[in-house]
């Protein structure tokens, strides 16, 4: 008489014989609530193969072997030998004990059992010819496994004992639980990537991914989701390296996989300060994202990182961008920064990027992991605009036709001092009072003397005393105030990066503008377009993005680099 478990295993065998991978997946369910037939199976497993019986596992493997003849070695249609599929036996036995015992109330145990099950499924995936039949199952399990791992990471009380045990016993950095999960899933990703049983280059004559290579980006995206949610971005590098080295081109994969992958790739490059590469990946993902309203959450996230990348490349969002449905509320977070860049308002920039996150946009920028990059790499654009603004207000035309227009760096210094001091002295309340504009200002703003550095010293948080000297009598706190050397250094840095066109007269403390007689004059030619400068020096290749036959060689470098020369001696000194 056939039992319920052997009936089910015969169904499994039939699915393998017919090479019905998706049918196999639909049989091997792991998520409760189970259909009635599975409830019967589970009840049967509990009586016949109880959890506490040490030989249950062996007995389960025995019935798998007896019913799933496809796991034995055999021959294919051409008479070539096909090796046995023993990992499938262990996997199926493990699956039966999993559904027998699964208890979603105990998340940690569920995680551990899933981890075991996933590893067995990964092993079964490695079979050269039959492994592909388990691929949809591997992907479905990976989705569940990743959710459980992320869920556990957010419940530290459940895993505290594991974390402390790991950190006390291991040398070096202990691997976190989600990282372990990502590493397990990466094995399946690698198996997909390295499948040799495919058409040349892994592409079918119809131009689709062949064999297990069909699973490359599905598995990569699941790994990346875990690593991003748990903030282990270092660990992503391996995935991008592997894809760069051996993946078929991205464009032959389904749109959902492409867009999701480019989102993670773009964010990775953003985090690594490769802003041009980030912009290329995110722009493509955004362009390929459906415009239907159900995809607004994805479009919105893409747009947030795309705006940030563009700000860092000297492109500011247009007013029409903010009218898009996915852009609701984004203007208030990005426009202050864009305004600071556009006008050279260093005080506004300092307030937005203040580390106490007191500016209304700061929490938003931090939450999306944009704060560090925007605060550190946009400053040079603000400098450039401020130099330009001071030039428009005070720049001198040359004495003769042949001499260049000049900008007195002392004037720039006065502007920097004003704005740095102003940034320090403005409390959020004063800033609010200031928002009324001329004629509506609070009296405190009319009376405050913003121009002396000593005024700044009165405000907490801007005085610096090294902790070794804290409390020592007679120690005068350091308050930074820009000086002419710093202006020269900043000017030199901007010239080196191509954002100013001209040279410095150290003797006169002046910046001389080149190209003033070309169309557009000094204001145009002395202050080159930021985006054009960056675009010219950036490559179009994005590491990790496989397109066509050629592979990229390295990450596109982009964005401004802060070159601080304040400590450098002037030439000839």
């Amino acid at each position, binding site marked *: 008489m056939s039992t319920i478990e052997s009936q089910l295993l015969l169904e499994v065998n039939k699915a393998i014989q017919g090479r019905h991978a998706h049918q196999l997946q639909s049989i091997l369910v*792991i998520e*409760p*609530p189970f259909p009635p037939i599975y409830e019967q199976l589970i009840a049967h497993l509990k009586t016949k193969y109880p959890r506490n019986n040490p030989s249950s596992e062996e007995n389960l493997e025995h019935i798998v072997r007896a019913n799933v003849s496809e796991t034995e070695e055999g021959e294919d249609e051409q008479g070539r030998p096909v090796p046995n599929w023993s990992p499938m036996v262990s996997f199926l036995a493990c699956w039966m004990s999993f559904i027998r015992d699964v208890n*979603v*109330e105990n*998340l940690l145990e569920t995680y551990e059992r899933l981890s075991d099950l996933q590893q067995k499924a990964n092993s079964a995936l490695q079979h050269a010819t039959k492994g592909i039949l388990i691929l949809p199952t591997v992907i479905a399990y990976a989705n569940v496994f990743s*959710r*459980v791992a*992320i*869920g556990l990471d957010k419940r530290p009380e459940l895993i505290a004992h594991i974390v402390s045990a790991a950190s006390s016993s291991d040398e070096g950095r202990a691997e976190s639980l989600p990282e372990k999960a990502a590493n397990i899933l990466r094995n399946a990703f690698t198996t997909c990537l390295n499948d040799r049983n495919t058409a040349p280059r892994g592409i079918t004559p119809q131009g689709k991914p062949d064999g297990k290579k069909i699973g490359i980006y599905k598995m990569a995206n699941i790994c990346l*989701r875990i690593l*991003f*949610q748990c903030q282990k971005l270092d660990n992503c590098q391996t995935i991008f390296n592997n894809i760069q080295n051996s993946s078929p081109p991205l464009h032959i994969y*389904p*749109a*959902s996989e492409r867009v*999701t992958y480019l989102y*993670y790739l773009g964010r990775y490059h953003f985090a690594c300060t490769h802003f041009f590469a980030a912009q290329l990946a995110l722009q493509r993902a955004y362009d*390929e994202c*459906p*415009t*239907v309203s*159900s*995809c607004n*959450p*994805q479009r919105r*996230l893409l747009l947030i990182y795309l705006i940030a990348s563009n700000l860092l490349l000297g*492109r*500011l*969002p*247009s007013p*029409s*961008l903010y009218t898009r449905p996915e852009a609701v509320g984004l203007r208030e977070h990005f426009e202050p920064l864009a305004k600071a860049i*556009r*006008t*050279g*308002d260093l005080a506004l920039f300092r307030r937005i990027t203040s580390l106490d996150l*007191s500016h209304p946009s*700061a*929490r938003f920028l*931090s*939450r*999306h992991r944009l704060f560090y990059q925007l605060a550190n790499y946009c400053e040079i654009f603000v400098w450039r*605009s401020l130099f330009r*603004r*001071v030039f428009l*207000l*005070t720049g001198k035309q040359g004495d003769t036709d042949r001499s260049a227009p000049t900008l007195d760096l*002392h*004037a720039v210094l*006065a*502007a920097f001092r*004003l704005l740095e001091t102003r940034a320090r002295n403005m409390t959020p309340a004063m800033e609010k009072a200031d928002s009324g*504009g*001329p004629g509506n200002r609070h009296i405190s703003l009319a009376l405050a003397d913003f*121009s002396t550095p000593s005024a700044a010293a009165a405000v907490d948080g801007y005085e610096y005393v090294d902790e070794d000297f804290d409390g020592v009598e007679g120690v005068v706190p350091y308050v930074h105030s820009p000086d002419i050397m710093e202006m020269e250094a900043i000017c030199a840095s901007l010239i080196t990066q191509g954002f100013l066109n001209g040279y410095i007269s150290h003797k006169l403390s002046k910046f001389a503008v080149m190209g003033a007689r070309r169309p557009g004059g000094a*204001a145009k030619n002395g*202050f080159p*377009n930021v*985006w054009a400068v960056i675009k010219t020096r950036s490559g179009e290749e994005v590491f990790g993005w496989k397109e066509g036959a050629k592979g990229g060689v390295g990450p596109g470098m982009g964005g401004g680099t802060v070159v601080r020369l304040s400590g450098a001696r002037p030439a000839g000194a």
Partner: protein
Amino acid sequence: MSGAPSSNAPATKLTSDASKDKNAEPSKEQKPAANNGPLEEDDEFEDFPIEDWQEEDTQLPGGNAHLWEESWDDDDTNEDFAVQLREELKKLEKK
């Protein structure tokens, strides 16, 4: 687009009690900023409700409008910030 996309990807049942669906919460951006609290979580990039789509599904009505300003240099010397700056620089010239 083939097949009307339903709601968002279903949250897996195994994890529903572990990580509450944060997208169901009212938008966090509306919350008053508590400056001392821990950083909120990074938003997760949700699974797409559909697997594949065609290029026409990504086209906006009216085409892809102009998104980025590449030339944004501000020559307006009469706005508030420029006026303040000019006043300060005048003081310097008098010295």
